């Protein structure tokens, strides 16, 4: 039953897919390997590699699940269903909402964690990503390079640990451990019988304290000798240099205390171990001494406080920052965007209600808002259609229950339950309510004339996927989050600030070392600055990063001039998108 219904869907999708994506038909025909020999594919695959790194790598790998599934073999799986796959990649949620069975199944398998919308990706771009995947990625793809970098000079524990020899060593040490315990047991027994201690544990442990002291300090210094070169990387920002000095002062205040007190602790333990006939020195307190070790730390800390206080105000509460050039950094699960102000030098206003596939940052634009309202209304209509179909769907599910077994049956029952309990309907109704609110808010915002967010300032804003900064020019990063709290961490610039939904934050700094200079300092021609996420934000938290380039003014200008404004050529671009998406969603809604 299901297959009969599904097949026409496939056919329709394929039909519409072919019809609407005919410009990229040439690539699609060649999707199945081998692709070699066809003109231009190498370039496409290379482009696919870049696109994958920028858009997909935070949630997917070729092998193994990250947040989303492994993508190896995805072409084989959806060979006949390219149009479906394309629609899924562009806007999986639309498919889910429309009740598409396969989409819902995947959505449920991943516990309702929807894939991000990629309506901004063109068909050719999706094709080139898929081609790149189909060609097995590339050797030095951004995935799985962690060990190759240092494998040459660092010992590799990885595989050898679980070889047989090591198992034998583990077993042997366990046996030795057991034997030691048994010896202790016997000695304990002897001491119980004879009534006196065979081993002078007190002296042994006192001696061990001394050994530990030496070993501890030795290890601290050893670790320092190895890792000092990786600590606090060369500061690439102006305030970072000051901050590093402060760090140095704090080291100078704390390290001596660390060594002296640890020394005294273990040394006293050793020196004043119990000896027969000796009595401890009765000393209950000494006020002067106590004043000294209250006041000295207090004074040292007061100095550190005043230094920290001053610098904190200088970094975060300085009026100079108001004059710096602004760019916006936008965080979402799981990636970053940056927005440059464009020619007018002003960042347009933005609102989360305006976010969709083609306007990922929700920059205010009157036409876009109007379009979006239309789109939302269509969404609502399609969801209402889905609700209307629920009884039919439920009957169908019930009729197909027979003959299923085990897990399949369980899943099916779960599905039936989700319909019967009204969960599905409630979820849809809540979404409809949210969409209605969104429409209301947008129409409201469109009506306002005074203080309206639709100033047109955002039309030439450039939304990009890497930050370019001019060396020695102060920059004010304004942070905005789409969904949950993220944290923008730039270790080389000594900069970190949380990115909070509903609460704009900012950080101003001056980069003083270009990427090239830092590459020379580090002796690593591959080095790049990165902005990484440093506040737990979901399962793919560890994969959120954005490249930061610091360069001279000329190369910056060259780069910025290549970027197109968000709504600059919208007439042609949006027209395409509309034609692509609307009939498609209607088709999906019917099914």
């Amino acid at each position, binding site marked *: 039953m299901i297959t009969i219904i599904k097949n026409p869907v496939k056919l329709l999708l394929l039909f519409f897919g072919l019809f609407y994506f005919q410009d990229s038909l040439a690539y699609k025909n060649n999707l199945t390997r081998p692709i070699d020999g066809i003109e231009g594919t190498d370039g496409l695959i290379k482009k696919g590699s870049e696109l994958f790194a920028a858009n997909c790598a935070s949630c997917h790998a070729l092998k193994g699940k990250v947040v989303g599934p492994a993508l190896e073999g995805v072409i084989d799986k959806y060979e006949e269903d390219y149009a479906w796959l394309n629609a899924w990649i562009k806007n999986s949620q639309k498919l889910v909402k429309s009740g598409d069975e396969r989409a819902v199944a995947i959505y449920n398998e991943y516990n309702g964690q929807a894939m991000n919308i990629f309506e901004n990706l063109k068909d050719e771009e999706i094709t080139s990503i898929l081609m790149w995947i189909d060609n097995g990625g590339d050797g030095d793809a951004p995935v799985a390079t962690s060990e190759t970098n240092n494998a040459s000079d660092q010992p590799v524990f990885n595989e050898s640990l679980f070889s047989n020899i090591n198992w034998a060593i583990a077993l042997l040490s366990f046996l030795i451990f057991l034997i030691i315990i048994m010896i202790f047991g016997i000695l304990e027994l002897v001491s119980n019988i004879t009534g006196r201690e065979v081993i002078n544990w*007190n002296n042994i442990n006192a001696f061990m304290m001394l050994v530990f002291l030496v070993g501890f300090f030795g290890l601290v210094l050893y670790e320092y000798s190895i890792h000092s070169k990786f600590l606090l990387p060369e500061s690439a920002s102006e305030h970072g240099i000051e901050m590093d000095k402060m760090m140095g002062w704090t080291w100078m205040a704390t390290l001596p205390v660390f060594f002296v007190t640890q020394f005294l*602790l273990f040394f006293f333990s050793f020196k004043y171990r119990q000896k027969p006939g000796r009595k*401890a020195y009765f000393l209950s307190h000494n006020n002067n001494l106590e004043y000294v070790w209250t006041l000295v730390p207090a004074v040292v800390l007061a100095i550190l406080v005043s230094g920290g206080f001053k610098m904190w105000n200088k970094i975060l509460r300085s009026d100079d920052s108001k004059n710096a050039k602004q760019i916006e950094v936008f965080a979402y699960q799981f990636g970053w965007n940056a927005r440059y102000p464009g020619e007018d030098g002003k960042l347009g206003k933005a609102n989360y209600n305006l976010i969709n596939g083609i306007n990922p940052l929700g920059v205010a634009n009157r036409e876009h808002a109007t379009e979006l309202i239309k789109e939302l209304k269509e969404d609502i209509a399609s969801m209402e259609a889905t609700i209307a179909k629920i009884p039919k769907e439920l009957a169908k599910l019930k009729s197909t229950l027979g003959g299923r077994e085990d897990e399949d049956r369980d899943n099916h029952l779960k599905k039936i339950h989700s319909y019967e309990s009204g969960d599905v309907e409630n979820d849809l109704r809540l979404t409809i309510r949210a969409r209605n609110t969104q429409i209301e808010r947008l129409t409201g915002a469109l009506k306002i004339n005074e203080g309206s967010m639709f100033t047109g300032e955002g039309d030439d804003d450039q939304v990009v996927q890497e930050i370019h900064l001019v060396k020695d020019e102060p920059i004010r990063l304004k942070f905005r989050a*789409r969904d949950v709290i993220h944290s923008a961490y730039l270790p080389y610039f000594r900069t970190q600030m949380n990115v909070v939904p509903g609460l704009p934050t900012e950080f101003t700094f001056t980069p003083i070392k270009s990427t090239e200079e830092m590459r020379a300092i580090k002796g690593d021609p591959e080095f790049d600055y990165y902005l990484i996420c440093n506040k737990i934000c979901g399962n793919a938290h560890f994969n959120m*990063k954005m490249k930061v380039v610091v360069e001279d003014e000329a190369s910056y200008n060259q780069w910025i001039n290549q970027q197109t404004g968000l709504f600059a050529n919208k007439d042609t671009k949006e027209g395409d998108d509309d034609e692509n998406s609307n009939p498609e969603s209607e088709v999906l809604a019917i099914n």
Partner: protein
Amino acid sequence: MSSSVAHADHHHEETFLSKYVFSMDHKMISKQFLITGIIMGLIGMAMSIAFRLQLAYPDTSFPILEWFFGSKWAPDGKLDAGYYMALVTMHGTIMVFYVLTAGLSGTFANLLLPLQIGARDMASPFMNMLSYWFFLLSSIVLLSSLFVETGPASGGWTIYPPLSALPKAMPGSGMGMTLWLTAIVLFIVSSLLGGINYISTVLNMRTKGMSMTRLPLTVWALFLTAVLGLLSFPVLLGGGLLLLFDRGFGTSFYLSDIYLGSAGALEHTGGSPILFQHLFWFLGHPEVYIIIMPALGITSEIIAVNSRKPIFGYTAMVISLMGIAFLSFIVWGHHMFITGMNPLLGAVFLVTTLIIAVPSAVKTFNYLATLWRGNIRFTNAMMFAIGLVSFFISGGLTGIFLGNATLDIQLHDTYFVVGHFHIVMGCAAIFGMLAGIYHWFPKMFGRLMNKPLGYIHFWFTFISAYLVFFPMHFMGLAGVPRRYYAFTLLPEYGVWFDVNVVMTLAAILGGIAQIVFLYNFFSSIFIGKKSGTNPWQANTLEWTTPEERIHGNWPGEIPTVYRWAYDYSNPAYDEDFMMQNVPDEGVEEELFETSKTKVNKSAKKPKPEAVTLFTLIKNWLKPNTI
């Protein structure tokens, strides 16, 4: 008094249920807390080893993980990224709340408060029993979240909304988060029931002669801890309830302007995620001291007993405890320097935070002065107490970096933070707890734990703890962020790969050492050497109770207290200890007071003494007591 003697003599027959399960005897309840705490601790530790394996061997398959967690959470023997987060979250929650708050305070407050102040039981034994049962229920609810389909809470133990408020933001924020919040609400109820009880017991039920200034430092620490808990836990309760409203009833306390990938633009406006952080850390920071203060109290007692010396500067110790307790309420903002809180507030919290280092420093120096010229007996408990002081120094000093808002910009949420708090509150508090277990095991079970096994346990735990957490400071200084499942997209951090391996192996070693402890603990209950009434020759009242550990604690009258708790090696006596209930014979009356007046006399002589190196040495050489 006679009525209670009668009560102790022929109380009703105890069934198994009333003696071991629904017991209202504080000693039994403390054992219940301890054993539940140990079990929770083992679970938390096992989790940490599982995710440390992932950090050290990101590409290796461990079939045992798949066998244990199932193919859903560890497909092909590799932890799933979401489950890694879940384990980190559950590890944090279990260790902070269930082991180091309930396991530590619950055990030792219950055991020691009545025994050390000379009371037959807690002020309200029934509330005490309820406190344990809420705790157990809460543990069960928390652990049950491991078995829900979408996995347990996985937004970090700090559960910052919106991540924790929106089930669609991550799988762990679904049913798992609801169970987490339920568990915490139950936990807070348990903690409040216990706390009120501890406070009223200490204030009202001290025996004759036990003035506040004669209380052992354990009692002071546990008392102030209960005050902290009573004042701060309700705030988390409020915060958690508001979060439940946001999750379930569509309110917007913490939510505003959110567009969720899987749900589109949400309706919530006007809330602030920062509000939750304020509410959370208003508990969260005192919580750190709720964890460490009992450990410090236990250490004070054990160091004094085993150095055979009075604790140095009893008054200073009490004042610094009070100082820490007070200051801990006005420093919470240092967890939020860069969360988008107004930078002006950041500057204020910077000042208060660094002030709190002063009383902590005083405590450390006083411990050192207590050891100085002592007659140190290395009992198992003493070893752990010394370990605690070492951790307290190492971890306390790194706190000076993190408390400085300017440096926190760089270090926030890096491994430096992980290293810092694991050493100063994780390891130190666990060591305090272990020290307490070794020291008061005779009071719980009437037997001694095996000494050599205790030494093995100590050295392996001590060394492995430093090996795990010390290198983290180096990683943090290099800017390695915490809560990262893998560093695949950040090849720069590949240099820490081998360090991660060392840390993981050390963690496994530490885990094995705990097996030794478990064996020692459970076997000693049955086959340990009989301890006698006062195995450590200590002064405090709990060692005057009979070996049989009867209901009501003392068979006859409750002893009267004549002196402070730290009369060790007093030259006036032949013995090197003098128990608190031994009456004076005129001369030694109010020993503590006489020593004070003597100091005043000598100080009065010429001038208020200037503190110079010379006077320092002079004072050292010239004992100013007796």
